[in-house]
């Protein structure tokens, strides 16, 4: 049976699961299940940069997808990057089963500000919708308010809303109708 599996990679605040589960239930017609926490893979650590390569984390997650119709979303607190880019808020396989979101740069503390849980909740929901949207075939949207718009810095994450624009929402709905579920 297809489902959206959520998995913590390392330590993740417990509150995050409620935010993510509620947002997922609003948008995706899939049962949400939590898998046991996974350790951050050592192979992902880039000592020179003090960051974690998202490709290694994605590879680890792809080995845990139970079936083709399911999706797996990894959530982590570590700072993600790829060789070409200095950081990532998250990454996903376009039309594939795997996505990962990092909370590291979504937290106010990263920018030297006091922690704000409501801000972290909003940003987490936006990035989860964004990366999950990719797994369902959505590409970046030119509407800055849409969850699918590309955010290359935190101000652009804040400029988005916690929902898809009508065009992306429709495309997503068509995808679920066409696939009879996913």
């Amino acid at each position: 049976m297809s489902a959206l599996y959520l998995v913590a990679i390392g330590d993740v605040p417990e509150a995050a699961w409620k935010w993510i589960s509620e947002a997922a239930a609003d948008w995706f017609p899939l049962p949400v299940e939590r898998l046991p926490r996974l350790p951050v893979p050592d192979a992902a650590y880039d000592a020179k940069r003090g960051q974690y390569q998202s490709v290694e984390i994605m590879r680890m997650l792809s080995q845990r997808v139970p079936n083709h119709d399911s999706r797996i979303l990894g959530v982590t607190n570590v700072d993600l990057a790829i060789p070409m880019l200095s950081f990532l808020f998250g990454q996903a396989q376009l039309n594939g089963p795997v996505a990962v979101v990092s909370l590291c740069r979504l937290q106010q503390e990263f920018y030297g500000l006091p922690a704000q849980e409501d801000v972290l909740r909003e940003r987490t929901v936006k990035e989860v919708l964004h990366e999950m949207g990719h797994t369902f075939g959505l590409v970046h949207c030119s509407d800055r308010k849409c969850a699918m718009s590309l955010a290359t810095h935190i101000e652009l994450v804040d400029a988005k809303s916690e929902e898809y624009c009508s065009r992306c929402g429709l495309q997503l709905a068509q995808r679920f109708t066409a696939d009879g579920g996913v």
Partner: protein
Amino acid sequence: MKKNFPILVVDDEDVMCESMGAWLREDGYRVDTAPNGQTAVELAKATDYAICFIDLKMPGGMDGIETMMEIHQVRPDASVIIITAYAAVDTALQAMKEGAQEYIVKPCNPQEISMLVSRILKLKKLQSENAILRKKLTRQYRHHDIITKNPRMEEILALTHEVASLRSTVLIRGESGTGKELVARAVHFSGNRAEKPFIVVSCAALTETLLESELFGYEKGAFTGANVQAKGKFELADGGTIFLDEIGDISPKLQADLLRVLQERRFYRVGGTNEIEVDVRIIAATNKNLSQEAQQGRFREDLYYRLNVIEIHLPALRERREDIPLLAEHFVNRISSELGREVHGITPAALKVLMAHDWPGNVRELENVIERAIVTCRNGMLDEQDFSWLQKNSVPQTWDIPDVPLGELERRAIVAALERKHGNVKEASAALGIDRSTLYDKLKRYEISH
């Protein structure tokens, strides 16, 4: 827009190709990756990449700059972005000197890459629009502007290329909308007259007297309203080419005048006494069967033979269906760009509809149909429903059969089949569904020479 600009990532590190490819795909680009220079060059031979991200240092084989140079040999317009792990001004300068558009040090900020890619593609889009508009403005079409993979069209293109620099008269036959003027322009602009005028005259649009003064010009006072002397199209085309469209519709008098120009390259202006000599190449076109018109006395036989030095018979679009997807894609790119509409392509279901249509108006009809669909398209891709009206309008073709004896119909069917198959009896008999010996019997009975 994005799907029209494929991107290549070249890096010996698997993780780099995989992650960069995934990141760009999220943005809607089609991305290929190559682990070394040799593979990259092979991929570039098959795909016209808009941007190539190439790692500067790749162990064994070609380095980044060599790879870039090889890619530029096959794809001179590809924008190359050289990637390196270390900022080294001398290497950057060398890369830029050899033709790299940009040089970036990894890792870089996602915003930097995003803006760089979008800036390069915006420029490419503007360049492509500029080229389309310039071409439209000058209408200087050449052979490579004729889109086809149909073997018969390819033979025709090879022939037009061969005859481009000759002065021999060309007669282009084909149904309306098959692209007769486009082929005429290709002959002119590919030959040694390209820098000289290409003058178009639509013979069917004008009355005999108007066409006469249009072609040959007139002297002041030659007729009421001729207040000043005027040069005709033949004089205006001096050194270049005159394209006489719908030549089958000209009057017997003009046929005689035209024959004289063809024989002597000289004529008189209407009302004039001084002979004017011109060096003009004539390309004529018609949708009529001029040979038949000549046989039936409606067209001068001597003029027909003078015109028919090099004959080109353009196939109808339904006879070159394999070109429909290519032409459709070309029209989508061109028209969406001209109209400023974000339409990226055609879905397979829509293409199926286009392939099934009979296209009585040929390529011109296809172009108009695509334009209408682009105007009403809502979701960035032309889909089946954008052409639903086309299916509704597609009524089965009815034959316009004259009241003639049955034998005459058979005779005409045989003549038409032979013409379509360029006199090839084997192919004509197959098209008619009879064997060769039966066809020979009928040729004899109806006294048809082929």
